[in-house]
């Protein structure tokens, strides 16, 4: 893993994947017609150096195949079906009126392929964990008949430069229908990702959207300490489309309910619950949500996408060197002036008192 990231929630960018043969001419996207963009809810819990990322992929009707690509902060050690009520319970905790949020479905998916690290099937979802750069991930998708939207090359590189781990989730709507899944039924997926710090990839949520289209998502964080975030949702003079909707110690009832769900036994006895609402135009959502869950209050500008990741950064010039240079200037300038005033000769100064 390249950067000290806490694993966090990789918000889900679902891509409508058009099955081959994809029509190349004239605005035809795929068998599902226009892209359905639904609200996304993800959960990222971080405890004992492990991120637990839960998201849900929802059957939105129609046929054919579509799916999503989610950047991850590290390689998952486990990918399993998520619990049955974790996301719903979180929504009820912070916003009992809203309906259960859904997975996003975006427009979507098309040298060397990305390396396949893990493959599994959960209900009608085919999950693949990939390692590779933007080109490799794009090639992997293309070779499977998926088409990526035009902004994908830049967005994939944006993530791959920092963490070349991606989760591709292909959703077979026909298989879902055969399984009896109704429109609105979701398949939760739970990834366990050891990592140093969590971050939430937000920019991927705008994949396949025009600049003016609205991106909506809810991100829940459960951390041992109150997290510091960059950008700071709802902060003074912040206009990044992020709203801090909830920030408080998690209630005992919530933690108990979460802990009782499948795969959620890791939930600690005490934790801090944060909910960030994203409502931003896609063109403005060119950053991620960096999180410092350590309590140190220093979220990473690299994790937020504000600063480029460098795998081998040049060492910073030590401050002592600057001080030494300044001292040399202070000494050298008067001496040079004196030397110039003296006509440039090597005459020595007369002894004091002469």
């Amino acid at each position, binding site marked *: 893993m390249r950067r000290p990231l806490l694993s966090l929630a990789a918000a889900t960018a679902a891509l409508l994947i058009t099955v081959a043969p994809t029509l190349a001419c*004239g*605005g035809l996207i795929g068998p599902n017609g226009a892209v359905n963009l639904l609200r996304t809810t993800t959960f990222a819990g971080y405890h004992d150096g492990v991120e637990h990322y839960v998201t849900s992929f929802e059957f939105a009707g129609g046929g054919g195949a579509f799916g999503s690509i989610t950047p991850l902060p590290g390689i998952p050690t486990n990918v399993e079906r998520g619990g049955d009520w974790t996301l719903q319970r979180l929504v009820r905790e912070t916003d009992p009126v809203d309906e259960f949020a859904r997975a996003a479905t975006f427009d979507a998916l098309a040298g060397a392929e990305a390396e396949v690290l893990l493959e599994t099937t959960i209900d009608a979802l085919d999950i693949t964990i990939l390692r590779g750069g933007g080109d490799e991930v794009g090639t992997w998708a293309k070779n499977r008949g998926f088409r990526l939207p*035009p902004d994908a*090359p830049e967005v994939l590189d944006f993530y791959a430069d920092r963490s070349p781990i991606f989760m591709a989730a292909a959703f077979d709507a026909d298989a879902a229908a055969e399984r009896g899944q109704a429109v609105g039924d979701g398949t939760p997926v739970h990834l366990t990702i050891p990592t140093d710090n969590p971050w939430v990839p937000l920019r991927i949520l705008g994949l396949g959207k025009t600049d003016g289209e609205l991106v909506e998502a809810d991100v829940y964080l459960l951390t041992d300490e109150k997290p510091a975030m960059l950008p700071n949702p709802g902060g003074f003079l912040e206009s990044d489309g992020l709203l801090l909707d909830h920030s408080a110690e998690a209630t005992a009832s919530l933690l108990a309910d979460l802990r009782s769900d499948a795969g959620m036994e890791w939930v600690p006895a005490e934790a801090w619950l944060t909910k960030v609402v994203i409502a931003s135009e896609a063109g403005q959502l060119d950053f991620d949500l960096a999180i410092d869950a350590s309590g140190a209050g220093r979220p990473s500008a690299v994790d937020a996408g504000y600063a480029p990741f460098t795998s081998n950064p040049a060492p910073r010039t030590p401050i002592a060197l600057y001080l030494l240079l300044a001292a040399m200037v202070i000494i050298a300038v008067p001496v040079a002036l004196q030397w110039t005033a003296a006509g440039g000769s090597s005459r020595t100064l007369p002894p004091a008192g002469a």
Partner: protein
Amino acid sequence: MSRSLLRRPIAAALLLVAAAATGCGASAREVTITIHYSAFDQAAISVPRGVPITFVLVNEDPIDHEWLIGDDEFHAAHRSGTHASHGDVPTEVTIPALETVETTITFDEAGELAYICHLPSHEAYGMVGILTIES
């Protein structure tokens, strides 16, 4: 060597550099267009009329693109077209991901044509350029 004598080769070199930078010149026979992050690196190109022009289309992206050149009527037809790929017609080219494709066209009439990628959402994303055919 006098300054005026120096200026001439420098000016000539600058003209060559400028012509190379724009990908064409009055006598250009080959124009290279690179596609990176779903954008043509040249949004405006000028070529002479009646001369075979070889377009070298370099796709640096991991997704397919198209390079279709024609007038408004041509593009209107392709916006609603259903071709899975192009290649039989010199003015209609599909460039597979991470590949380079060449096509040679002779433009017999002066005027302006547009080159556009008509894959879904690509035109709206900005994959549009203008070719001026000089008389």
